[in-house]
C-alpha cells in the first residue's frame, strides 16, 4: 500500500468533533475593557467624531458610540468594539498584545528623532536678480559681494554639518539666487564629498534656484556631482510674472526653459518645482494645477503663504484670510481628485504628507508638521554671514529684526553651544504638542506639528493660543477635509492610501 501523505505514519483522519466554536475563544466580555490612550474631536455637524489612538490610527464614530466607549459601556457585541480593539484603543481579557504593538509604533514614530539634523540649508548669497514682493529674505544688489557667504564660513558650517549623527545628510543651497554664487557651491560640494570619504553618510545636494541664470556650466556641474534642482513655479505666465518681477518680465519663460534644459541634462525626476500662493493665486487654482500638468510634473504642493519677511511688510499675508486659502486649497484638491478619477495620476503633496502620517506608521520629513518641532533638529540654516538659524523661517524673521531663533554663529559657537542652547531647547520643549493646552486633548495631535517659529511670529510666543492660530485652523480644516472625503468615497480612500504610501 502506498500512502503519499507527508508523515511516515499518517493514518486517514477520522471526523473529529474536538473543534470548538469561535465564541469559545472570545473572552472579551469576561471583564471590563481597559482603555488605551485615545482622544476624540468633532468631525462635522452630523454628530460624527474622529477618534485617534496613541499613534494616530483613526476611526470615525457617532456621538453615541463615542460616549458609550468613553463611559466603559461599549458592549463587545457592538460592531465598533472590534474596530476599536483592532486599532488599539482598548485591551481586554481576550488580548493585550496591543500594548506591545503600540509601544513599537511609538518607537517607530519617534526613532527618526535620534538621527538628528538631516537637512542643512546653506544661504550662499542674498543676491538676487528677482524682486518678488513676497520674498521672504532681503534681496540685495546683484553685484555686491558683502552678501555672499565666505569660504571660511562655508568650511566652518561644514564642520557642524558633519557633527550631526544623521546617517543621511542633505545639503540644500539657497539664496537670494544661489547660482549667483556658483563658485562657493562648487567648493562646498567638493569639500563635503572629501569629508564624506571617511564620514560615510548618505550625502545628497539640492540647488534651489529660480533657473533664470542657469547656464551650461552650472548644469554640467549639477550633472557631474549628481545634484538635484528645485525651482519656483507659481502658475501660468501672467501670474508667475506678476508674483516674480525681474528685469525683462520674463521670469516664467526662463523658469520653463530652465526646467526643460535641466530635465534634459539631469533627468526628469531630478528637477522639482514649488509654488507660492499669493492673493492673485486664489481664484485660479485650476490654472495653476494645469500649468504643472502642462509641464509634466507628477504633482503639486499647494502651499500656504508663510507670514514672514516681505510677506508681512507688504501686507500680502493679511491680504487674504485663512478661510480663503482653505477654499483655494480644497478647490484644488477636489480638482486633483477628479483628475485621478479619470485615470490621470497626479499627487497633491501637502495632502500626501498628512495622509502618510494618518494612514501609515511612518513619518514625513515635512518640518512644519513635526512635534517635537523640526527646528534645528530636523533642518538647520547656515546664513551667508555665519549665523545659524533654527529654520528657513527663522532667518526670515531675523531679516525683519527678530533674532529669537538665531542659535549662534559658526565662527564663534561650538556644535554643543548651538544644539544644546536655550535658544533651541526652550522653544522645542515648550511647543511640544503632546503637552500643549489645546493640542494635548486634540484627536489630530498625532498628525500635527508644533511650529514654534510661526506661533512666535504671529503671537509672540512659541506655543501660542491655538484658537487664534492660523496654523491650527488650517491644519484642523485639512485633517477634517481629508477624512470627510475618505469617509464619503471608497475610491478617494484608495487614492489617499496610494498617496500616503508614495509620500
Amino acid at each position, binding site marked *: 500500500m502506498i500512502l503519499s*501523505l507527508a508523515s511516515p505514519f499518517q493514518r486517514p483522519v477520522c471526523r473529529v468533533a474536538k473543534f470548538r466554536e469561535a465564541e469559545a475563544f472570545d473572552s472579551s466580555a469576561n471583564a471590563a475593557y481597559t482603555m488605551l490612550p485615545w482622544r476624540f474631536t468633532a468631525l462635522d455637524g452630523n454628530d460624527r467624531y474622529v477618534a485617534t489612538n496613541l499613534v494616530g490610527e483613526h476611526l470615525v464614530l457617532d456621538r453615541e458610540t463615542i460616549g458609550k466607549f468613553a463611559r466603559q459601556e461599549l458592549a463587545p457585541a457592538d460592531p465598533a468594539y472590534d474596530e476599536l480593539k483592532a486599532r488599539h484603543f482598548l485591551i481586554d481579557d481576550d488580548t493585550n498584545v496591543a500594548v506591545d504593538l503600540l509601544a513599537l509604533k511609538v518607537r517607530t514614530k519617534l526613532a527618526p528623532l535620534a538621527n538628528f539634523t538631516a537637512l542643512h540649508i546653506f544661504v550662499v548669497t542674498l543676491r538676487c536678480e528677482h524682486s518678488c514682493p513676497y520674498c521672504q529674505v532681503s534681496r540685495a544688489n546683484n553685484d555686491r559681494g558683502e552678501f555672499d557667504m565666505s569660504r571660511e564660513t562655508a568650511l566652518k558650517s561644514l564642520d557642524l554639518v558633519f557633527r550631526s549623527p544623521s546617517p543621511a545628510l542633505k545639503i540644500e543651497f539657497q539664496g537670494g539666487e544661489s547660482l549667483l554664487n556658483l563658485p562657493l557651491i562648487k567648493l562646498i560640494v567638493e569639500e563635503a564629498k572629501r569629508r564624506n570619504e571617511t564620514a560615510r553618510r548618505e550625502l545628497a545636494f539640492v540647488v534651489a534656484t529660480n533657473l533664470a541664470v542657469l547656464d551650461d556650466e552650472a548644469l554640467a556641474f549639477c550633472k557631474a556631482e549628481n545634484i538635484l534642482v528645485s525651482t519656483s513655479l507659481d502658475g501660468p505666465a501672467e501670474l508667475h510674472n506678476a508674483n516674480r518681477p525681474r528685469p525683462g518680465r520674463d521670469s516664467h519663460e526662463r523658469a520653463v526653459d530652465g526646467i526643460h534644459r535641466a530635465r534634459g541634462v539631469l533627468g526628469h525626476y531630478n528637477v522639482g518645482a514649488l509654488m507660492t500662493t499669493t492673493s492673485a493665486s486664489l481664484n485660479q487654482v485650476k490654472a495653476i494645477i494645469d500649468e504643472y500638468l502642462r509641464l509634466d510634473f507628477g504633482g503639486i504642493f499647494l502651499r500656504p503663504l508663510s507670514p514672514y519677511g516681505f510677506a508681512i511688510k507688504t501686507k500680502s499675508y493679511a491680504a487674504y484670510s485663512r478661510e480663503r486659502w482653505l477654499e483655494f486649497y480644497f478647490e484644488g484638491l477636489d480638482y486633483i481628485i477628479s483628475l485621478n478619477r479619470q485615470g490621470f495620476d497626479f499627487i497633491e503633496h501637502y495632502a500626501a504628507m498628512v495622509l502618510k502620517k494618518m494612514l501609515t506608521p511612518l513619518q514625513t520629513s515635512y518640518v512644519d508638521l513635526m512635534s517635537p518641532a523640526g527646528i534645528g533638529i530636523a533642518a538647520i540654516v547656515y546664513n551667508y554671514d555665519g549665523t545659524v538659524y533654527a529654520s528657513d523661517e527663522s532667518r526670515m524673521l531675523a531679516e525683519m529684526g527678530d533674532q529669537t531663533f538665531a542659535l549662534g554663529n559658526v565662527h564663534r559657537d561650538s556644535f554643543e553651544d548651538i544644539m544644546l542652547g536655550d535658544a533651541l531647547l526652550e522653544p522645542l520643549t515648550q511647543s511640544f504638542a503632546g503637552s500643549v493646552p489645546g493640542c494635548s486633548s486634540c484627536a489630530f495631535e498625532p498628525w500635527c506639528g508644533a511650529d514654534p517659529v510661526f506661533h512666535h511670529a504671529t503671537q509672540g510666543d512659541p506655543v501660542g493660543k491655538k484658537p487664534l492660530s492660523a496654523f491650527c485652523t488650517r491644519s484642523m480644516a485639512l485633517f477634517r477635509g481629508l477624512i470627510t472625503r475618505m469617509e464619503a468615497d471608497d475610491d478617494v480612500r484608495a487614492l489617499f492610501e496610494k498617496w500616503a504610501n508614495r509620500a
Partner: protein
Amino acid sequence: MIPLRARALEFRGASPASAEVIRVSLSADRPAIIKAQEGFVVGTGPVPEGFAWYLLGSVDDFQRLPIDARAVIAPAQTMFLGQGDVIAVDPLRKAIRVLYRGNSPYNHFLLTERCNNYCLMCSQPPRDVDDNWIVDEVLRAIQLVRRDAVEIGFTGGEPTLLGERFFELVQAAASHLPGTALHILSNGRRFSDGEFAAKLGAIGHHDLMMGIPVYSDLAHLHDHVVQADGAYDETIRGILALKASGVRVEIRVVLQAQTVGRLPHLAQFIARNLLFVDHVALMGLEPTGFARANMESIWCDPVDYAHQLSAAVKTLSGAGIRTSIYNSQLCVVPADIRPYARRSISDWKQTYLPECEGCEAKRECAGFFASVTHGRSRAIRPIVGAS
C-alpha cells in the same frame, strides 16, 4: 502525484535494523568508498557490486543483484529517484521515505508531528508522539543534500517544540548547506520568549525565512482558527521578537471561511503594525487532513472572496510589502491581482483538472492539490484570449 513515502515494502537481505539515511545513485561508476554509503537504483543496465543498498523496480530484478546485497522493492520510487537524492530505508517498518530530491524546488523536512496549535484546516494533523528519531534522520539527511541546493524547508507539526534540537537542526542547515536558503514553517508562539528568538538569530543563518501564520486582526478569531486560546498574542509577540533578533519573517494567511471576511482588515493591520515583515503569502486551502474533515465549515469559494483578496493584496503591496497569492487557480483570481499569484503547489502533489484543458494560462497557474476531490471553485474555466 509523486509518492514520497511508501510502506509495506518487500525487503531482501536486510536484518530488521533501524533506518539508514543514504544518498541515491543512478550511476554504476562510483568510487568504492562512496558506493558503500549509497543506494543504487537498479535499471536495465548491469548491476555493479559494492553499493550499500539496491532499489528495485520489480521483484524479478532480485536475481540480478550481487550475493548478500541488501535490497528493497519500491517500484513507484525507482520511477522518479535521481542522482544525489536522499532517502531513508527502514527495514524495521518496511518503509522508505524520500527526504530530498535534487530536481525538485520543493524539499521540506518534517521535523515533528507534535503541535501546540490544532488548526481547523491543518493539512498535517498533529499527533502527540515521541518522534525524536525524526530529528536524527533529518540531521543525517542534511549532510547528504547536494550543497548546490537552492532551498530546503523545515515543517511540522511545530518545529520549535523540539527546543534545543530545533537549534541543532538550523545550525546543521547553516553549516552543511552554506549556499542553501532555509524556510521554516512555525506558529511562532515559542518565540514570544525573546531569548528563544535571540538564540535563533544568533545562529546567523545566511538565508533564513520563518513562515508564520496570522489569521485575523482580532485575537479570538485567530485563536479559533488555530483552536488555541492565547495563541494570537504569543504569535504576534513571536514575530516582533524574531524581527528584533534579525530573523526574516513571512506571514502566511490561509484563505477560508473564518479568515476571508476580515481579510482587508488583516491587511490594514499588517501594513500598520507589521510593516517590517519580509513577505505575506495569502494561501488557498490544501484540502487534506483536518481541512478535508472540516470542509463544510471552512470552505469558501475563491470567487466569493475575490473582492476581499483583491483589496488585501492592494493594501499590502501598496504599503510596499512583498505579497504573494499561493495555491489559487488563475481563473478564479481577479485579473488585476493575477501578477501576485505564484505557482506554489509542490510538484509531487500538484495536478490540473479536465476543465483546465485548453487554458492558455496553465503554465503560470498553481493548479490544484492532487488531494482535491471537493473544494474546487465553481468558477474553474480555461483562460482563453484576454479573459
